[in-house]
Structure formats: C-alpha cells, structure tokens
C-alpha cells in the first residue's frame, strides 16, 4: 500500500537528470543563437536608447507642453489637462523627472510594439476559429505565468538590459489588445456584415470599412488595458536593467526606504491615471455616433 500513501513520483536522480537536460539544452541554444538574436534586436535597442534620450534631453517645458497638447487632443477635457499639468509639475518638483521620462519612453515603445503585433494577431484570430483556438491558450499562459519565470529564459538569451526588459513588458502587456481586437471584430453585428456582403464588399473592404471602425471602441479598451499592464510591469522590468521609476522602488524595497518607494510608486500611479483617463475619453469620443440617438 506504499503507492497509496506516497505519490509514485520519479526518482530524485531521474528528476535531476531531467532538469539538467532542459537547462543544458537551453544554454546550448542561447550560446548558439544568443549572439544572432541579440544582433536581431540591435536596431530596437538603438531606437530605445535614442527615444529615451529624446525624452530626457528635451527641455522640460517643451515636454510638458507636448503632453498637455496630446492630453487635450485625446480627451478635450480641461479638467484632465489641468490635472496632467499639476501631476507632472509635482513629479518634477520631487526630483523624479528623469526617471519618469525613462519610464514614459519604454511604456510608449512597448505599447506601440504591442499594438503593432497585437492588432494583426487579433484580426487573424477573428477571421479563423482555428487560429483563435491556437492563440488563446498561448495568451492564457502569458497572462497567468508568473513574470519572474519568463524573465529567466529572456535574461539567459539576451542578458540584462533594455531589450529584455522591453520584451518582458510586452509579453505581459500584449494579451488584452489581442483578445479585445478579436472580440471587438467578432461582436460586430452580423446583419451589418451581411449588408456589406450583399453590396459586394470584399474581405478588406469589410475589415477596414465596417469591422474595424465598429470594433474600435473595444480595441481601444484593449489599448488602454495594455498601457495599464505595461506600467504595472515597470518595477519588475527594472530588475533586469530597465531604467526609470521602477529602479528606485526596487531600491526602496531592499533598503526599506518608505518615502522613496511611496514617491516613485505614486508617480507610476499618476502616469497610469493620466493614460487611462485620456485614452478612455478618446475611446468614448470615437463612438459618439452611438450616443446621439434621439430617443
């Protein structure tokens, strides 16, 4: 009855062998291809560095003015613009300007990458049930696997630095935009699509003329979520060498600096709130036609 009380697991030596094999295989892989993969990401790294420098080196009044302008274009709300202005003044006054700029730069690049990859992926999923069935489990894994776990292979492959950090952020932040693009397109009214069909629209005309515009509010909710999740990854990304607001937080955790941790943490929250409000307002304005009904 031994098997009944003790799980019949594999022997310790077998287990050790198994882990060793996996580790060696991956080490071999990263030795052979690591260089190539790193070179592949070289342009991205250059761009990231340039983009971050651009944010840091541009005089702060110009940055603030541009941000306020964008906030106004996005939201058309005086309240949000004033709030944004005060927030950034406060961040700068407490000496977090440069870190905030670094974080802003990586978040923007990460969001852009997620959109560029995520929306086409979502479209492919909406077009075919098979593609959907293949991608959904991958997204599930990406969303539930602890981020520290995929940091290991990323760091083994690419070492420590901005690019592995960016990749980690993207892995964490891309699922919502993919899911919501897929959902948004699938939720488009079948009657309306039938009408487009009956007038002889082809696949692309339906996609860009009917499905995407009608799915846009949903897709935009995905963009919003992606930005939020990218911000949430800032601290973890700083563990593998991404500069920005995450680094001081990390330092504060290991040294128990309460004030430092709080300040930088709150700066991340402020960024998140501004991004959220502006993108949400923008999303609402895009579906104005829905709210203008007479009844």
């Amino acid at each position, binding site marked *: 009855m031994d098997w009944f009380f003790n799980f019949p697991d594999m022997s310790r030596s077998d287990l050790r062998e198994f882990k060793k094999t996996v580790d060696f295989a991956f080490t071999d892989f990263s030795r052979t291809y690591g260089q190539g993969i790193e070179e592949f990401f070289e342009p991205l790294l250059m761009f990231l560095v340039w983009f971050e420098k651009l944010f840091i080196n541009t005089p702060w009044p110009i940055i603030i003015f541009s941000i306020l302008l964008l906030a106004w274009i996005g939201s058309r709300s005086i309240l949000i613009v004033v709030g944004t202005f005060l927030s950034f003044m406060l961040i700068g006054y407490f000496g977090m300007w440069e870190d905030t700029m670094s974080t802003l730069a990586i978040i923007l690049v990460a969001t852009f990458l997620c959109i560029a990859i995520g929306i086409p992926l979502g479209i492919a999923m909406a077009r075919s049930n098979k593609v959907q069935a293949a991608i959904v489990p991958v997204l599930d894994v990406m969303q539930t696997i602890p981020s520290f776990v995929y940091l290991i292979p990323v760091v083994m492959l690419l070492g420590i630095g901005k690019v592995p950090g960016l990749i980690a952020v993207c892995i964490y932040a891309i699922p919502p935009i993919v899911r919501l693009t897929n959902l948004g397109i699938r939720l488009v009214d079948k009657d309306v699509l039938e*009408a487009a*069909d009956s*007038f*002889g*629209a082809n696949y692309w005309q339906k996609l860009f003329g009917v499905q995407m515009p009608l799915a846009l509010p949903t897709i935009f909710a995905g963009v919003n979520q992606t930005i939020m999740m990218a911000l949430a990854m800032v601290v973890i990304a700083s563990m593998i060498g991404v500069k920005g607001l995450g680094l001081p937080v990390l330092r504060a955790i290991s040294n128990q600096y309460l004030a430092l941790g709080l300040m930088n943490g709150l700066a991340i929250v402020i960024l998140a709130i501004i991004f959220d409000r502006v993108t949400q307002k923008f999303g609402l304005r895009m579906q104005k036609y*829905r709210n*203008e*009904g007479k009844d």
Partner: protein
Amino acid sequence: MNSKDILIKVNELYKIFGDGDKNALDLVKNGMGKDELLEKSNCVLGLNNINLNVKRGKIQVVMGLSGSGKSTLIRHLNRLIEPTSGKILFNNTNILDLNPKELIQFRQNNMSMVFQKFALFPHKTVLQNVGYGLAIQNISKDEWHDKAKKWIKRVGLDGYETYYPGQLSGGMQQRVGLARALATDAEILLMDEAFSALDPLIRSEMQNILLDLQNELHKTIIFITHDLDEALKIGDRIAILRDGSMVQDSDPQEIIMSPADEYVSDFIKDINRARVIQAKSIMTPTNSKSSGATVKEDMVLEDILQIMSEAPTKPVTIENSKGKITGKIEMVNLVEGMKRPKSLGTNITG
C-alpha cells in the same frame, strides 16, 4: 409565358442545414418531411425543391410564416447562403457557378438588398450609407456623392445627409436602407421583410413609396413578407412557402379565389374579401353590354357595391383596360363573392 420575360429562374433548389448533407438530401428527395428529417439525421430542412420564375420588372412576393424558409430563399439569390443542390439562373447564367470575384461583381452590379432590421452602418452618415454600394466600387467621391444625394432626395430625406442612422426614426432608417439599395442601379431588388419592423402607418407609407418608385423604375423586386395585406397590395405574383416547400405560386386573385390547400386557406381566412377581390374574378363572361353602369375589371367588390347600391337590380358591365366589354356582375354574384366560402369556416357563432 415568354421565356425572355423571366429574369430569375430558380430550379429544384434544396437547402439542408447541418452536417451529413449528402445523405440527408437523398432522404428529402425521396419525400421525407421537415420534422422526420430533423429526428432521423439531425438536419434542418431549409428549402425543399423550390421552383420559381421571377418576371422582369415585376414584384414577386414570397410569403410564409416564420420558419417557412422565405428569408433563406431570398439569401440564396445573392448567395449569402449556399444551396445544397439546385440552380439559380439569372439571364441564363447560373449564379451558383460564379467564382468569388464574379460573385462580388454580380452583387455590386445586379442585385441589391433591403433588410428587415435595416442593417445600416451605424458609424457612417446617411450620405455614406446610401453611397456605400458605389463607394466600394472605387467610383470617384464626387460621383457617388451626387448619386447618393439624388436618392436621398428621392426617398424624402433631403437635409439629413450628415445624420447618423442612430439619430433617425425607424421609418426614416428604412428609407435610407431603400435609397442605399436603389443607389447602385441594380436591376434586382431583394427586400427581406423590409417593412415588417415598422408600425402600420409608416409601413403603409413605405409601401406607397415603393409602388411609386416601381411605377417609374420597373425593377425586378423579390419581396419577402408574412403579411397578406402587404402581399396583396404590392405583389404582381405571390408565392407561398410552408416548411421550406412551395405550396402555391400564382396571381394574387387566384390565391384568394382558389387557395391550393388548407395552409393557404388559413392565410386568407381573415382578409377583407370585399376590398381585395376584383371584378374579373367573379364576373360572368359575356361581351354584350348590361343595363347598369360600366366599371373596369380590376375594380374591387367594395367599390362596385357602392355603385350598384344606387340601382341594385341592374347588372354592371365589366370592361378591360382597353375598354372592351368582358363580362357582367349581378348583385347575387357580388354577395356570393364577398361571403367566405364554406371551406374557410365561419366566425359567426350563436
């Protein structure tokens, strides 16, 4: 009937929804009905051996209760639904043989559709909606704007070009739907319960707009409805579907005077016969003049009664549209024509 008059010819069309189509098709061809098929092979019989000839420039009504397959049938004509077997000929080309490119061409140029729930594009303005069929043909913006504006005006929505569908009432939305379908100048208009979602007054108004337009445009219209009054008002010919099979396809007068079976009888049971039946359906054929007034052969009994009531004993003379005498009607015929045939039962109790 001249075969040149026929624009669309539907030939032995079958549609079976569900898996295992091939086997199910044989079962249906050997006479299995809808319920039995569902039980035996878990397939739903959509259309069962449909044959239909639609005449050029006429309004062909297809009628039936919900679930009878009428919406399925109309969607076969532009292949929004693919049949299980059969042929649909348009000017002698089988629509079912078109490849995807040709099908898109065909839909753009030859057929357009009006939907029960309007199916307008909510993110496009009235102008963009009406011009949609043209815009996707890569016609220049100026050109489709002009055409779309013309049709918006024609359906009485002048000034609403920049509105979104959500800002319009149901009746106005369906005018947009109608204008959108007319704007492509397609020869064939498919109307899938186009007016069923509208309230009675607006519906009647839309029917008049359609008849008005038809007088001028002479489109070939396939009109789906479940409403007999509507069918009688606008149909040049009425086909009745039941459980995916065609039970009768005839002249509207014939439907009322000689219903093919109980199902059709049930349909016509509650109509106001005096307002629908025309003189030619009940007259006694003769070519000599009678003593009473002279009326046209498409006058309805109610109006003839009005005329006869002044001189009840004098039979009226019936003449055709060219003024030739074709028959006479006496008061007895009139009463006989208005009363419900015994086979249709009676509503009078006590």
